[in-house]
């Protein structure tokens, strides 16, 4: 038989492996306490589930809706975000609904990035940024967050960008910078001052800003989520990305959105009409209804946008305490639902493990096998140069119900005893 000549295109060359494909398989065993993938095991609010159940009975909601976003959803989004941003947002021209924030990242990058462009990515980063930039033919330029207290980091706020180092990364080829705040995996909530440094550089170099703000509602006491698009000179060059999955604890709905000026969003809409055309109708309608419910109570502390973060703050504190009692040093996040931990202090010797993987990969696999607890290795979120720097960290997800955290507690208490 003739050799099969049909290989993949260059654009996806080398993009086949992926930390999730590797680790979700390993952690799928139900006996393992899964604090790895960012997946809530708490229930979404009941009204959200009810709204979706209602949609099946409405005939037209089972058929195609408007390609760029279901009318009632884009209207609701424009209302919520007009209030948050303090500016008029046109639901038809300034918003695109996508398949998750993932789909927004893809549409944005495909619309605006190409060969010859450079895109600045802050490390550690949500892992899809790098392959998506590469698929668009552009060059990722990495800059790490560095902890400013020499060695004894306890808060996500201790991880900062060096302004001079950042400025050096910008040049005439820099098409965009990807910002993620609140940040996955560290949980950093960029301050207004930090955002101003980034904004100044974007304006100076006429660079776009792709702002991944999926965890925008999950900020803890003493912190405020600031939207870079609201800084002077930034609206016209920023795409702000949000997620229903993170807002309402419904990751399986896979709905996200991009918000920005018409002259940028229109190109994302072109990508969308040539990739999947329209997102599912019933989910968009249910999401719109949920948004109206919470929009009406945005002045009320019971609004889910605030009540979820209160609920998560106590889980954060509990998770931190468990890890500290086990002798570990967690980095307390100011936002998001992840916590990173330096595991090198446990001195687990994995030098006999043959695999040429970074320490944290080996550690997590060992931890899953021998402790029945899963997490995600941090070097999955780094470019090639910084893997050494981050390979002593692993990431835990704490948007988990009490019984899951109880099970994690049992493992961590036991662990301490064994290694004493």
């Amino acid at each position, binding site marked *: 038989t003739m050799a*099969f*000549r*049909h290989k*993949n*295109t*260059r654009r*996806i060359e080398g*993009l*086949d492996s*992926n930390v999730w*494909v590797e680790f979700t398989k390993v952690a799928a065993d139900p006996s393992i306490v899964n604090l790895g993938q960012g*997946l809530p*095991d708490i*229930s*979404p609010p009941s009204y*959200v589930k009810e709204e*979706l*159940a209602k949609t*099946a009975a409405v*005939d*037209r909601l*089972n058929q*195609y*809706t*408007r*390609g760029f976003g279901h009318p009632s959803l884009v209207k609701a989004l424009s209302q919520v975000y007009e209030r948050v941003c303090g500016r008029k947002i046109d639901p038809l021209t300034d918003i695109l609904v996508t*398949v*998750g924030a*993932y*789909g927004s990242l*893809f549409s944005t990058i*495909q*619309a*605006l*990035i*190409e060969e010859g462009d450079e895109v600045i990515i802050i490390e550690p980063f949500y892992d*899809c940024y790098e*392959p998506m930039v590469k698929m668009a033919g552009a060059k990722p330029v990495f800059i790490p967050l560095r902890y400013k207290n020499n060695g004894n980091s306890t808060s996500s706020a201790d991880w900062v960008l060096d302004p001079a180092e950042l400025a050096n990364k910008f040049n*005439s080829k820099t098409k965009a910078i990807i910002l993620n705040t609140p940040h996955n995996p560290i949980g950093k909530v960029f301050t207004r001052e930090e955002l101003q440094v980034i904004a100044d550089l974007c304006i100076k*170099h*006429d660079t776009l800003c792709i702002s991944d703000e999926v965890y925008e509602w999950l900020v803890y006491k003493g912190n405020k989520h600031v939207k870079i698009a609201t800084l002077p000179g930034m609206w016209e060059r920023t795409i702000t990305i949000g997620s229903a999955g993170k807002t309402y*604890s*419904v*990751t*399986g*709905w*896979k709905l996200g959105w991009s918000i920005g000026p018409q002259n*940028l969003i229109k*190109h994302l809409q*072109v990508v969308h*009409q*040539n*990739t*999947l*055309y*329209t*997102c*599912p*109708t019933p*989910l968009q309608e249910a999401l719109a209804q949920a948004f109206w419910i919470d929009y009406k109570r945005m002045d009320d502390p019971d609004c889910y946008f605030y009540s979820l973060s209160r609920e998560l703050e106590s889980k954060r504190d509990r998770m931190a305490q468990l890890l500290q009692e086990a002798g570990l040093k967690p980095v307390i996040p100011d936002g998001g639902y992840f916590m990173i931990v330096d595991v090198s202090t446990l001195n687990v010797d994995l030098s006999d493990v043959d695999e040429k993987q970074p320490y944290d990969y080996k550690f997590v696999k060992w931890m899953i096998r021998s402790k029945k607890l899963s997490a995600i290795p941090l070097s999955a979120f780094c470019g090639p140069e910084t893997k050494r720097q981050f390979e002593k960290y692993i990431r835990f997800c704490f948007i988990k119900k009490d019984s899951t955290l109880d099970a994690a507690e049992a493992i961590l208490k036991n662990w301490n005893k064994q290694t004493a």
Partner: protein
Amino acid sequence: EIFKLTSFLSLSLQAKMSRPVQAQRLEGTDKNIWVEFVKLAATYSTVNLGQGFPDFPPPDFLKEAFVRALSGENHMLHQYTRAFGHPPLVKVLAQFFGKLLGRDLDPMTNVMVTVGAYQALFCCFQAFVEEGDEVIIIEPFFDCYEPMVKMAGGTPVFVPLRPKAPKDGKLMSSADWQLDPAELASKFSERTKAIVLNSPNNPLGKVFSRGELELIADLCVKHDVLCISDEVYEWLVYDGKEHIRIASLRGMWDRTVIIGSAGKTFSATGWKVGWTVGPNQLLQHLRTMHQNSVYHCATVAQEAVAQGFQRELELYGKPDSYFVQLPKELQRKRDWLVQSLDAVGMKPIVPEGTYFLVADISKFKSDVPDVPDSDEPYDSRFAKWMVKNKGLAAIPLSAFYSGAHKNNYNHFIRFCFAKEEATLKAANDILQKWKQEKTSP
């Protein structure tokens, strides 16, 4: 002011600012017929036979499956499922299509779920087509194939279905539109990466015969070309015709990606659940593309569609099967609309499949005078006039042709007949009234 500004800015910044902000891959892909025609239908139509979606509901068993999935104890159906397809769905798809193809299919490697058949098409082009590649597209075609090939950097190569005159006195059938074998063969070159096959065909409703498929298959094998087989209307075949899967022909399994759609299969276009079936050596690259573009598809609809397929697996071939009921129902509607159009002088091409039919509106041309130097194809102007003045929405056939060929068949419009009886009756009333206006003094 401008002089001051430009001298102030560095040369490289000026260069950047004068470049368009959007990527080049979008060039030539921004126009989209649906954006315009959907808006027109929404504004003017009283009877919408334009965009292809049913105005009747999905079957009860499917809606019940959806509600059941949501009301259960398991709220984890609101969270991510397996990225390449919810396990119950890929399992039943592997079983179902394995039976149809006479093959053992592995749900994990031979099936991948996508956000509608649309995203499946996108993954195929992105995974296999790049600059230097040609892709053969048979005209008329579902309009997204062309921009998708372009966005992937490929060159579309078009080959038309050509109408043969029907037998005296008979209405034309979609079977009368055929490829010229020599013409088709001439389109294959060493640069040909793939051919897109759509059977049953949107917009004509043609169901390619075994002989026609063998013609295409032989060329694919001879030139070592991939086949992207869009079979979303696979269950909508009429008059006892058989939908033949090209992947089941000799030499084709290894080079074919079959694309299907829950939207069309279960009359739930708004659910946006589609799938690809094929050999692992092709699907592995679709998985790579998928995981770097949307990654996961929504969970609940996949669960409900899985249950729908489970039911159909048990009822396969039996009278209660939705896949038996639906085409029976749609054939009735087809015949009704054919009769309606024929009675007023619009000449329908009787479709062998899908829920579309195309009609020749030449007899109504007097209502919409020719504009000699118009950029817009005649049928497009006609369709716009018709929706604005008669409230009846349809899609011009030129929408399904490449730019260079839009005027080749410019007196046809496409109707969707997946509509309630009341809708088809209302369409008939409009047509009758229109005819009367033309014939009365």
